[in-house]
């Protein structure tokens, strides 16, 4: 496996925004322990802006780093801007990920979309969120 970039290692060793938000405006939990990746994202929304974001993650170095990065990317953004955040943006912000770890960035995007979806549902609104396609786990025999 290729090495992690120093930015990925930094977010892994010193992750930003670990924790939970009581009475969060949106919570999304994605992934599953059998695959080795579970991400939970909490968001606080005021006036259509994400004022706070926290995460909890069960997963590898890349999973923790992408969770941390997505909370950074999302804080201070409007809901509309947050909806546009892609897994590629997360990976790029981290200086790239090994090919075999790109699915962790997809999971981070899914966690965000899941939290936004939850936000709409909690408000009783129709959710415009489109969940991204398959996580892209390649379960091939070596």
């Amino acid at each position, binding site marked *: 496996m290729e090495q992690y970039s120093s930015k990925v290692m930094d977010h892994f060793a010193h992750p930003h925004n670990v924790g939970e938000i009581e009475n969060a405006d949106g919570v999304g939990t994605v992934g599953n322990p059998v695959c080795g990746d*579970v991400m939970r994202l909490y968001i606080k929304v005021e006036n259509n802006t994400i004022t706070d974001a926290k995460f909890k*993650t069960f997963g590898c170095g890349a999973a923790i780093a992408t969770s941390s990065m997505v909370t950074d990317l999302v804080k201070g953004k409007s809901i509309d801007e947050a909806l546009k955040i892609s897994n590629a943006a997360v990976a790029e912000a981290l200086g790239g990920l090994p090919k075999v770890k790109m699915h962790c960035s997809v999971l981070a995007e899914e966690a965000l979309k899941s939290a936004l979806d939850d936000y709409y549902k909690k408000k009783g609104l129709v959710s415009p969120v489109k969940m991204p396609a398959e996580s892209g786990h390649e379960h091939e025999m*070596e």
Partner: protein
Amino acid sequence: MLPYFTVKFGNPSNLHDIGREAKNAVEEARVKTAALIGAKAGEIYFTSSGAESNNFALKGLAQANSQKGKHIILSQIEHFSLLHPAKTLEKSGFAVTYLPTDKEGLVNPDDVAKAITKDTILVSIMHANNEIGTIEPIEAIAKITKEKNVLFHTDAVATTGWIPVNVEALGVDALSLSGHQFYGPKGAAALYVRKGVRIKPQIEGGIQEDGRRAGTENVPALVGLGKAAELAAADLQHRMSYTARLRDRLQRGLQEKIEEMVINGHPVHRLPHNLNVSFWYVEGESMLLFLNMDGISVSSGSACTSRSLKSSHVLTCIGTDAAVANGTLLLSLGMGNTADDIDYVIEKLPPIVQRLREMSPLYEDMVKKKRAAAR
């Protein structure tokens, strides 16, 4: 080894003095390797790796004996270097039975007996599993294969140099071993094949290894393998007791300090230097990365650390919960480890596990459930 990289650079296949010198070195290594496992020198075929020995054994024995039958029996916890060639043999007309193990990784000899048919030509069960350390009942299985006139190969890559390995006592017809598992260099390994057993060469086109495995010998590495075998034979009991003591100390220390951890493998019939542990709610690679930062090198069987993104097939076979299988560490000890090293790991690992648990949504859910149940 060093002279064989420079001044003693001969090719063992040459008849001149320089070649002869290299040839003698290889043959001396062969004698020492044979001595470690109680075999005759002529029964040792040198290969480049344990994986090659395993491929050679499985395909070579199956193909050479296919006129007698086409059924092979393996366990589900064999190394991929046996499981993958088995799949390849299936595609070319062989039938393979993969036997399960119990939850401690033991193969039941009765299962082997029941699986053998008139068509069975080969059984391959590992001496001990490299991941969980469980030592298999090879002698009992050999009694059955002898009775039924079926060839028996064992992958002893994890055991050679660490516990007594004697081909007569074990009763096997073929055995794989690998030098770098017992302080030899990488690139030198061997396959023992009992005299009289037919095996089809897999690497053809040379006179080396009695025509059974072509390719100019890796002389320095084989010299190293021979030396490693000699040292292992002289030190075997000490290595076993030294590492087992450290392993037990590590196990006790971790059990005292960390909750919700599972020790995988057999509690008694296991390798002395191996400890395979699963921790609930945390993932293997992230533990590995933190331990590495503290100067501690371990392995993990998590899906994230494998290229296929699947977790360990061994843990799956023994019935480990898929969720905790991804939180597994393999801690292997060696003669270079000391009690201080063990105490250092006991100091460093629990806070790492706790830190990762506090970051884990699975741990969060468990804690909330506990609190709710307590009310």
